[in-house]
């Protein structure tokens, strides 16, 4: 509901626009002429089998991986440029990326990690930066003592949250999440899902969410893109359940998928 308000007047503005993307290693093709639009204020979930190229797709969008063919534009700007160029820097302060293992800088404390983008792009005083770091930690559900710890002292789930806090440091318009809930306990994963939804609603965030977690998929994204046979199949969860592709059928109608979706149905009935 609220997200719609954000989109008013710019309903179909594509934040990410991919045309004819081809990626592959050697003779193995990962993406075969993929087209994709991600709209402002939308959460797009991306799923696919292991090794189907979800992470490569994400890397192509943020410019870490130069595609063989095709164009990728973020906020109307191609990301195929040299990743450290000034044009890319202007983009990089408008997005935040959470990598699978958190990718925290190991020689810095969590607080210092969160302050890296603040230091780079703003002229805040140290006191305000400390406060911002603290509220970011609170936002991702970490106790503030965590701020003084080094990444090597954190558990996998905590690293992920700290990585998210760093990705959120600049209040970005676009957030890339690479398997944010894998390795989290179900309670934390639920909280994470709620957090992402909340951020989308409040800040009008656009989220590109790579995930395997079918609970996250039913709770969070507006649309889901399935990477199957080197192509993208895009739709809502209901549309995808009706898709005839065997992999998609297995994915959404397998035991785990059915259980997760069933709980959604009962939940919506209870709501009525």
């Amino acid at each position, binding site marked *: 509901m609220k997200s719609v308000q954000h989109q008013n007047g710019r309903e179909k503005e594509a934040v990410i626009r991919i045309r004819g993307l081809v990626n592959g290693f050697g003779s193995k093709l990962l993406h075969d002429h993929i087209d994709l639009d991600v709209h402002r204020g939308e959460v797009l979930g991306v799923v696919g089998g292991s090794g189907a190229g979800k992470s490569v797709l994400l890397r192509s969008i943020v410019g870490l991986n130069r595609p063989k063919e095709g164009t990728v534009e973020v906020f109307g700007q191609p990301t195929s440029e040299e990743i450290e160029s000034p044009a890319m820097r202007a983009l990089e302060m408008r997005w935040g990326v959470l990598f699978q293992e958190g990718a925290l800088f190991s020689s810095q404390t969590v607080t210092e990690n969160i302050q890296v983008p603040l230091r780079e792009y703003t002229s*805040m005083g140290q006191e305000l930066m400390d406060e911002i770091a603290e509220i970011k930690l609170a936002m991702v559900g970490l106790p503030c003592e965590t701020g003084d710890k080094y990444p090597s002292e954190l558990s996998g789930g905590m690293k992920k949250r700290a990585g998210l806090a760093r990705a959120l440091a600049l209040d970005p318009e676009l957030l890339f999440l690479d398997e944010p809930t894998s390795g989290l306990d179900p309670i934390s994963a639920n909280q994470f899902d709620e957090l992402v939804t909340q951020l989308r609603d409040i800040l009008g965030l656009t989220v590109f969410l790579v995930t395997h977690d079918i609970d996250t998929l039913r709770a969070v994204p507006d649309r889901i893109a399935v990477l199957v046979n080197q192509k993208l199949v895009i739709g809502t969860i209901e549309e995808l359940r009706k898709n005839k592709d065997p992999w998609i059928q297995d994915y959404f109608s397998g035991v785990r998928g059915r259980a997760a979706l069933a709980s959604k149905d009962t939940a919506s009935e209870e709501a009525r």
Partner: protein
Amino acid sequence: MASLENAAEPEAWFKLDRDGRKLAVGGAWTIAESARLDRELAALNLSEHGAVAIDASKISRLDSAGAWLLLRTRRALEGADAKVSDLHLPELYRPLLETLDQPRKSEPRKSRIPAGFRGRLYKIGRTATHTLFQTLSMLGYLGRVTVETLEAFAKPKHNLRIAAIFQQIEETGINALPIVGLLSFLIGVVIAYQGITQLRQFGAELLTIDGLGIITLREMGVLMTAIIVAGRSGSAFTAHIGSMRVNQEIDAMQTMGLNTVDTLVLPRIIGLVVALPLLTLYADIMGLMGGAIMCYFDLGVTFPAFMRELQQALEVKTLLVGLVKAPVFAFVIALVGCYEGFQVERNAASVGLLTTRSVVESVFLVIVLDAAFSVMFSVLGI
């Protein structure tokens, strides 16, 4: 340079009304503006004005940095005993403020190290105990490796990884041939040149060849090779084993019941103990060749004449005195390299730190041992 702060946005503003009772805020309170807002809000002494209300209804955009500033302002007012009623924040942004509005739990951090003289004393003590424990731990490691080596040779079929040993010999020995050869050759040229210039004053140029032969075989060949290998292979051992620790590969091996000394350390130690003497012999030959070429051009001594002169000056003993040091140096370099690799903690900085330490320590130990050998040989009269 790109900065968030020159983005074109409707400016954030705040204004105290005339009697100073109400603070009106508006515009885009976002991170791009927050550094400026922070400074300006700090300059505004709110408690002085006795303001009691904040009107945030004109806020057009709010992100978490802006929301925090708003929240902090309200708290400052409440701290000054003013009862702040509603913020009149647009409905859309209320959940954000509520999310952030949690009591602050953190205590100001205190450093554990006291200031002044006691602090300095504390640091000296900490370094001293650290060094002591490190030395003890290294000795313990030496013991463990020795025991495991003996066990491995007692049951060579089971514990010796022949393929890995040969791989290490190739990596540390054969692949080092170009660099060791070139540097030894150049050192030979330099020694011969210096010898000729100095000894010419006494008309004893030909003694250069004797000096060159003795220096190269006894000291220079083995020392140069050991130092190059410490920088080249010792660092590689630490970095490799260290990265394996960072990746939890060592943990994985241990849970599979693989003995890390057998699999990682012994092949490196045995490989280097085999490779370094061979490299030393090669370095000796290259060094002598460098000297021979210098003598040919500077003194006109032909190669056969050079060899005859060498033959008179040297004994087999001279060569052996140099070569016997090589396996000892190799053992120390490999031991330190592997030991420091296992000390790596699970972060990237630690790999770099310990690799540096490994090279410094092994070069240090090589030179100290070389001095010890010299003393020992002179006492034994060799």
